[in-house]
């Protein structure tokens, strides 16, 4: 628990200067920062699209935009948020920055591959932006035959996602090797911080599942450009085949989104409660269990798609099995808080918000996993609400917790606590007003992806739209706090939160080589509180 002063002048930010020193950098910290800025920019773009979607829904008729424009807006909201923001943000941005620091390494295993992944990612994003000339209108799920027929730029978007996916695969590979080979002396697998376990499980999914979606998009392209008929019934193909391929990737990918966020929560809770994490092995291995079982449940997106009854029943059963390891993690976090000394600073309140919202997201899952009720709720606003509770209430709150937690390490400055809490209050209220309402809207039968809707749903749509404004205000305050504190924040000490993981043993911001000397690990990183006996 050493408290070093930020006495070293040279750090990763000021060691070299100029555009090219960043563009060609091999430093995982700089690459992480570049990912973060790129991705957060697109988070704001996707957010504005979401606000526009909500704005149109104030009225049952097209008062703001036409059907076509609405369809393009919700598609782009989904594509940007999923493929550019939620999937890469924690692994590629925060993960890149903290993985080597957490395991006591000087960099990732393949720094050149790392910078190449970043530029592949950026080129994918640029290709996606080119598609804006004629924005796609397929929804982020690209279901055939519609996506094979629409005149919009599905071809370009598919190429863009192909590139972004390739970047994910390379980053995943890099992280797996880094975690296997570059751990500091003494850091056994059971002394590994839980964030690393989360990233490890995520990387495995990325390496195994992303190629499938790559192949799927190539098949879609060959259908559009060469007239193949994989998914076209008039040529003997099967539109359901596309859905199977798509969800074989896109279901595991929700665990790509959530596992790293769970890892962040597992880091923050012990530090801010001064307690060892409860059930370390259960949390670590449940990440792997979720990653494995996550490959076997894709069919629960297709209960009413026309799949065989037997397959439907098996997928429902397996879906419920996945609920258990997820529940175990929540119980472990709450149990860690028992008899702690809980510091309610901003990283912790975001972590608590994650748990609070994720429980709601989790408990609404069985309604969709259960066959009888899913038939009714599928493709309604209930699904939209459930998804946003798990992904925005989960992954994004986990990201916000991580950003507040590691902001001092990344920038060398402290955030303003008061502003951070003000932003949090807006986000919590705005989020729940926007999305809780949608559970009821969905039960009442409101289908998703509707530009216009029957008047009986209007009052609830107004509530959600007003909620989206509160939520947006909170996020703007949070970004204002980030930007202001980069320049005006208090100087951060090496270890502002008194954490025991290795990133806090080096100055904030860290020097380019991370550690003066590679640390030697003698204990697990959650040794808070008073031990009754000697063994750990």
């Amino acid at each position, binding site marked *: 628990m050493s408290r070093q002063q930020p006495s070293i002048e040279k750090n990763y930010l000021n060691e070299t200067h100029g555009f090219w020193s960043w563009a060609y950098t091999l430093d995982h910290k700089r690459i992480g920062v570049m990912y973060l800025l790129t991705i957060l920019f697109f988070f704001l773009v996707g957010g504005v699209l979401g606000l526009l979607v909500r704005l149109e829904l104030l009225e049952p*008729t097209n008062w703001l935009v036409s*059907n*076509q424009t609405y*369809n393009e807006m919700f598609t782009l909201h989904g594509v940007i948020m999923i493929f550019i923001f939620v999937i890469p943000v924690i692994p590629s941005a925060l993960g890149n920055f903290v993985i080597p620091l957490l395991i006591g390494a000087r960099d990732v295993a393949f720094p050149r591959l790392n910078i190449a992944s970043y530029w592949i990612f950026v080129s994918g994003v640029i290709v996606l932006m080119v598609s804006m000339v004629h924005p796609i*209108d*397929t929804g982020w799920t690209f279901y055939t*035959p*519609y996506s094979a*027929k*629409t005149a919009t730029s599905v071809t370009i978007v598919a190429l863009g996602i192909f590139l972004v996916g390739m970047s994910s695969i390379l980053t995943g590979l890099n992280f797996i090797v880094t975690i296997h080979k570059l751990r500091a002396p003494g850091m056994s697998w059971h002394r590994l911080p839980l964030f690393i376990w989360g990233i490890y499980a995520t990387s495995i999914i990325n390496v195994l599942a992303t190629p499938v979606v790559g192949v799927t998009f190539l098949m879609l392209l060959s259908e559009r450009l060469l007239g193949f008929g994989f998914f076209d*019934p008039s040529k003997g193909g099967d*539109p359901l085949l596309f859905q199977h391929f798509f969800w074989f990737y896109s279901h595991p990918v929700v665990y790509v989104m959530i596992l790293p966020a769970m890892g962040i929560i597992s880091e923050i809770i012990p530090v801010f409660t*001064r*307690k*060892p*994490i*409860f*059930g*370390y092995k259960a949390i670590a291995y449940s990440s792997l269990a979720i990653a494995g079982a996550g490959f076997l449940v894709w069919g629960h997106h297709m209960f*009413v798609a*026309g799949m065989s*009854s037997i397959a439907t029943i098996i997928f*429902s*059963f397996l879906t419920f099995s996945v*609920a258990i390891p997820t*529940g175990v993690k929540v*119980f472990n976090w709450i149990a860690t*808080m*028992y*008899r*702690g*000394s*809980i*510091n*309610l600073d901003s990283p912790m309140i975001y972590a*608590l918000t994650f748990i609070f919202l994720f429980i709601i997201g989790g408990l609404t899952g*069985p*309604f969709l*996993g*259960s*066959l*009888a*009720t899913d*038939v*009714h709720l599928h*493709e*309604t606003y209930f699904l939209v609400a459930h998804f946003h509770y798990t992904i925005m209430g989960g992954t994004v709150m986990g990201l916000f917790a991580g950003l507040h937690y590691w902001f001092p390490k990344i920038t060398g400055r402290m955030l303003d606590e008061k502003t951070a809490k003000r932003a949090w209050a807006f986000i919590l209220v705005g989020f729940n007003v926007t999305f809780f309402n949608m559970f009821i809207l969905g*039960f*009442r*039968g409101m*289908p*998703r*992806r*509707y*530009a216009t809707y029957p008047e009986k749903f209007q009052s609830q749509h107004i509530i959600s739209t007003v909620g989206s404004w509160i939520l947006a205000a909170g996020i703007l305050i949070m970004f204002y706090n980030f930007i202001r504190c980069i320049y005006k924040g208090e100087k951060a000490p090496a270890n502002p939160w008194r954490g025991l993981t290795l990133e806090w043993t080096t100055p904030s911001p860290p020097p380019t080589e991370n550690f003066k000397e590679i640390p030697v690990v003698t204990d697990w990183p959650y040794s*808070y*509180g*008073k*031990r*009754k006996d000697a063994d750990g």
Partner: protein
Amino acid sequence: MTPDTYGPLGAASKIASEVDSVYLFITGIALFFFIVTQGALIYFAFRYRRKKGAEDVETPYITSNSVLEGVWVAIPTILVMSIFIYGYIVWEDMRTPLPGAEEIHVTARQWLFKFTYPDGRETVNELRIPAGQAVKLTMTSEDVIHAFFVPELREKMDILPGRYTYLWLKPERIGTYTIYCTQYCGVGHSQMQATLYVMEPHEYQEWAAKQVEEAEKSMPLAQRGKNLVEQSGCLACHSTDGTIKVGPSFKDLFGSSVKLSDGSTVTADADYIRESILDPGAKIVSGFKNLMPTFKGILKDDDITAIIAYMQTLSARVGVPPAAATAAGPAGQPTIEKGKAVFEGKGCIGCHSTDGTIKVGPTFKGLYGSTVTLSDGKTVKADDAYINESILEPNEQVVKGYSPVMPSYKGTVNEEELQSVILYIKSLK
């Protein structure tokens, strides 16, 4: 069949109320976990929050507790498995059609639903079922994937091109329900809705009878005659392929010379056939017995006309093409009725309303003669020439605020159908 039979959540069938029981079951379990977990989370956060100046307070070193961990794996496992089993049992009922369910075919296309009843009746965007009648919907799509969703019945199924999916319903609460397409299908997706009328059985019968009558009116006369011949039992004694049965064959009968039992000869013209149907004993064909009962009072005048038209099509002596004889107007003459049939049958209804509602395309109500603003800012009067062009070359002049998504109907509609649609649009003031 009282409105409140199926619970407070608005279920309109017995199965839907069973689904609601599953809802209540899951909600109970979810509430239990919600209270336990959120309660502990919030209670701990307040109870153990750090007071000012207590930074170095000592905390216990607790890393695990196998009993507790065993309990919180076992209890959730049992509860979620019970949810799975309950949901599965009710779903089995939802997927197993009652024996004897009436089969209705559903054809979906961008952006309408077409329903075909067992007796050949067809409706567009309007499904009528008598309360308490089980129906099985056999569904397929002509283009992209659609879905059939009635919230009050808790039923939904995707509709795919190139294969059949099914759904069965037994709505029991009389009322009007919206059928939504819930699988995203393009620009008209949110307007792809149909109406389900769950009717009193006798009202349904009246409606069905009226539909049949109207369908017959618009049916080609010879086709109606063929139906009558089949339904009235004529085929028990008369063949249509020349086989001799109890009575003479209808093949090549019309216009031929018939030798009667009294040795005389008559020409089988319309009057002869009419007489043979109403007064079969008046002229007996040589070699046959006087067995046929009269159809006086059973077949009406226009029925007989239809049967004669059918017999004409069976006869080589008269080359009357069957399609030419239509009841709704002489061949080649455009009429409003034909226009309405084309409007529904060719899918115009998927994008254009007739009541002023804005859908994917402009409404037809009040369209004719109005002044239309185009996407390039110009205005044009919606006259015959404009509507003609809009059907054959839809993207030449696109109305402001609409997307150029309409396909060309060149080659899909003939001149008669085109003029009929224009007449129909004119009639929608």
